[in-house]
């Protein structure tokens, strides 16, 4: 780095997380700055330059910052994170510095956290089945290595538990290597962070994982850095070191709220619910950092958790996440109330890359048809139970009553698996048991050999 640094004391104002410097002529967009005060140092980044006036977002926040007591140093560098094998097992803050400690002394390289877009012509299509051990995911919303699949969750629903369960159980069958977990805590509470830490400790993910932690009490601006730091680390392990990396980011809603805060301070025109108009592109710059690359061994699979305020799927953060990611796992309050765990609403959930990872040689022959049959039948059973509220049992036909029975069998025998891990074969067996409650003519999507199986189960009952 340059020995010569530019400093200035002409601070013209402070608004929200922003600091304005009035002779920032020499600054570059995105440049890292150090703010020296008599009480210590803070860091920030140049957001905007208008002639002499330069807007800086301060990572630690501006609380207690006195414009008369600041010297701003331009560092002639952008925000970077230090990378190396030593990161394994570390807990870092949002900027990639070991929490409560000093920047890593020995590292392999230093890389800007904004990353560069992956060349779409150089990606390799994700296609390896990941067994999560959760039947409603593996059989109906199959994840593949390199996919980005968020969990949408209303408040009080067990998104964290499910994410932890996936981290504990996920593996690519036939591939002995485990995922390396990069976990980004974004504005979550101490309690939630502790839950993840304990669960990862139990499963061993703690020792071969990296934790980037920005808690609710930490600065909101640093929240904007945390996922980028985590993803830069993930890219290093995946594409430099060849690991299969599983990135869990929680909670993307807090990230977007921090973005809104900075946008408001910049007096940008607000979009839906006050979020800036570029929310889509900004989120995409995170979510798109998942995938596989031609000719390289590693991969990045992302499971972001997105809270749904008021269970509203049309909330801009949820909606835009859905538009960017490759499907979604949606949690359902009704299932939770009926005591089903994990309460995954399979109808509104979707894995768009599912077809790449299933079928003969991957999961089992006929996987698609079984899944289609389960979707269609369960959708019908939900309809019938709505209808029943109006016309009562007497108004239902024989067939409709079959569907009611199927609906509850599906929830009880298939969805409600609890904490356990099911192999894909066990998940299929559970599905067959549920399907056997329907008469043959309703199961028109099922291939012949599985039909035999279903009839056998029906007889055994």
């Amino acid at each position, binding site marked *: 780095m340059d020995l010569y640094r530019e400093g200035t004391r002409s601070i013209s104002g402070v608004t929200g997380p922003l600091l304005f410097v009035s002779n920032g002529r020499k600054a570059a967009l995105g440049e890292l700055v150090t703010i020296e005060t008599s009480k210590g140092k803070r860091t920030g980044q140049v957001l905007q330059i208008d002639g002499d006036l330069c807007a800086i977002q301060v990572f630690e926040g501006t609380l207690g910052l006195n414009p008369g007591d600041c010297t701003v140093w331009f560092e002639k560098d952008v925000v970077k994170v230090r990378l190396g094998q030593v990161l394994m097992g570390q807990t870092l803050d949002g900027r990639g510095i070991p929490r409560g400690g000093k920047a890593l002394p020995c590292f392999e390289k230093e890389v800007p956290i904004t990353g560069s877009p992956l060349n779409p*012509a150089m990606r*390799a299509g994700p296609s390896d089945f990941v067994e999560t051990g959760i039947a409603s995911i593996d059989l109906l919303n199959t994840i593949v290595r390199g996919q980005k699949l968020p969990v949408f969750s209303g408040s009080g629903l067990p998104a964290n538990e499910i994410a932890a369960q996936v981290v504990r159980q996920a593996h690519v069958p036939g591939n002995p290597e485990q995922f390396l977990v990069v976990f980004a805590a974004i504005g979550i509470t101490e309690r939630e962070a502790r839950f993840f830490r304990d669960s990862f400790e139990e499963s061993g993910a703690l020792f071969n994982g990296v934790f980037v932690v920005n808690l609710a009490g930490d600065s909101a601006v640093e929240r904007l850095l945390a996922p980028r730091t985590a993803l830069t680390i993930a890219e290093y392990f995946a594409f430099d070191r060849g690991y299969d990396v599983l990135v869990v980011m929680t909670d993307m809603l807090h990230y977007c709220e921090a973005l809104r805060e900075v946008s408001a301070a910049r007096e940008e025109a607000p979009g839906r619910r006050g979020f800036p108009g570029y929310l889509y592109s900004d989120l995409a710059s995170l979510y798109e950092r998942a995938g596989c690359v031609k000719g390289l061994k590693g991969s990045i699979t992302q499971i972001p958790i997105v809270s749904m305020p008021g269970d509203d799927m049309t909330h*801009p953060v949820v909606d835009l996440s*859905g*538009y960017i990611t490759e499907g979604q796992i949606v949690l359902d309050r009704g299932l939770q109330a009926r005591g089903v765990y994990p309460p995954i609403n399979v109808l509104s959930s979707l894995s768009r890359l599912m077809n790449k990872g299933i079928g003969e040689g991957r999961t089992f022959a006929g996987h698609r048809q079984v899944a289609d049959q389960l979707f269609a039948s369960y959708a019908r059973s939900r309809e019938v139970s709505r209808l029943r509220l109006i016309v009562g049992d007497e108004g239902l*036909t024989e067939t409709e009553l079959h569907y009611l029975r199927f609906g509850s069998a599906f929830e009880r025998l298939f969805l409600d698996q609890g904490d356990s891990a099911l192999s894909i074969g066990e998940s299929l067996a559970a599905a067959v048991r549920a399907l056997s409650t329907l008469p043959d003519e309703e199961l*028109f999507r099922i291939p012949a050999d599985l039909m035999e199986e279903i009839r056998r189960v029906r007889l055994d009952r």
Partner: protein
Amino acid sequence: MSNLGKIKCLAGTVIRADSASPVSNFEVARVGSERLLGEVIRIDGKEVDIQVYEEIDGVHVGEPVEFTGEPLGVDLGPGLLGSVLDGIGRPLGGFSSEEAGAFFLKRGFFSRSLDPGTRWAFFPLKSPGDNLSPGDALGFVKEGEDFKHLVMAPLGSEMSRVREIASPGTLVTVDDAVGVLENSLAITPCQRWHVRTPRPCVERLPFSEPLITGQRVLDTLFPVALGGAAVIPGGFGTGKTVTQQSLAKWCNAGVVVYIGCGERGNEMTEVLEEFPHLKDPHTGRTLMERMVLIANTSNMPVAAREASIYLGMSIAEYFRDMGLDVALMADSTSRWAEALREISGRLGEMPGEEGYPAYLGSRLAQYYERAGRVRVLGEPQRKGSITIFNAVSPAGGDFSEPVTQASLRLSGTFWALDKRLAEGRHFPSVNWKQSYSLYEKALEPFFLENLGEQWKDCASFLKSLLERETELLSLVQIVGRDALSEQDKWDLEMGEIVRVAFLQQNAYDPHDAFNTLEQQMRLSEILKDLQCLVSEEIERGVLHQQVQGLGLLRQVLALRGAPAEDFEKRSHQWLEEVARSLTTSEGR
């Protein structure tokens, strides 16, 4: 002679610069010491606003800006087919420079859309002394097995006579002259075009035939005309991309231009991995050989996303000018409009509805107006067309938002994708109550001529049955299914058969992904015959329960999968069997 300025302000993707001498709107600028590409979008006295096509982190105030005097352009010529370009026409496939083929896109690389190294075999169509006007084909180069890529006199050039012309089979690069005119103009296989300018034509022609998509619900119920425009709005996960990819695979266009405008990287990869291995059912060439892919994914710079649709349109027009039918699909218009909004916001313009600039509608109109069926300039006389298929991603799935509404006003076919249907895995999730086609009238003569009178009966049978099902379903909501008459119960079952066997079409099932018009009609005819047959039996006293016991849906699905040759015979046998089993069960 280029003209220099200095950067004054930097924010996001827009910069402001001073310029010493006048510049023109939409001229290309090279920004900063890295000479990043940008485009002038507003001029205010000496101050010029520039949208930059790349990330501008690290750029300083005071760095130079060079104005090139040229608007944004693209090189059109052989080699475009099968290539992958970013939103401003730089190839991503990596033939031209190491940077273009890197895993991570580095900013500031410069690369032409065409490979200057490839040699093409040229064949003349003119001789020395022949007249040559703009658009006239001087000859062609052979691309792939049998694609004749016309080398045309540039639009806007002067009429002249051919002085020299290369002999048949001469190998040329895109920059080699294949002919020289008497006015000394050298004609090369490559011509440059400014992407925001529509390529002119002789005249627009009326709609007269459909673009065949191979999708039953689209072709039979909501057809789109060759040269028309279809809009595909839908919330996330409703199937916009899968539908567009199915069209890109199976529609009967000669060339497909696919614009990934602010969507996922993996979807581009999917096209690149699949299309080279799929055969075009119409020509037998691989699908990649009739395709130009423009990939400006959501994480790539926003300003280039704005430009990408004009790039795609210019390429489409270029192939149209060769006399081809081009299908142009953009996924998604909403991401383009958001780019427009973001840039407008950075300029501090007065926002219109939902923050979009007031000129959203007129910009979109300029784009849609470039579609159509036309007689193109030049000899030999040719007709060509561009048909637009644009996805729209409305916020919250609400179609009343400005981008959907503006798109609807500008297009003729509306394929409304429905969240409820998608959740029940009914794909394509085209809502048959909401969707419409304004081309039906114009296309009627074509259908009658090619499919006969029955075509009309089949289409109206499907429509009225679905209508009837809707009515009955709302009745069921009140009285329950048990209270319906036997005929109504059967109509409901028939509604389900139509929905599952006809409307639904699985894009991932190679036997089902594509149907010719004839297959579509034959299937609907069988369904119609089935409806008549069973209704008659019910009138004679057969109970619906007996019909239900037959599992007709499974049988229809099995029949649908039968090879096209046997279909006719097997379907008649099958109908007879159904009739037999109903009459025997009657006499139980």
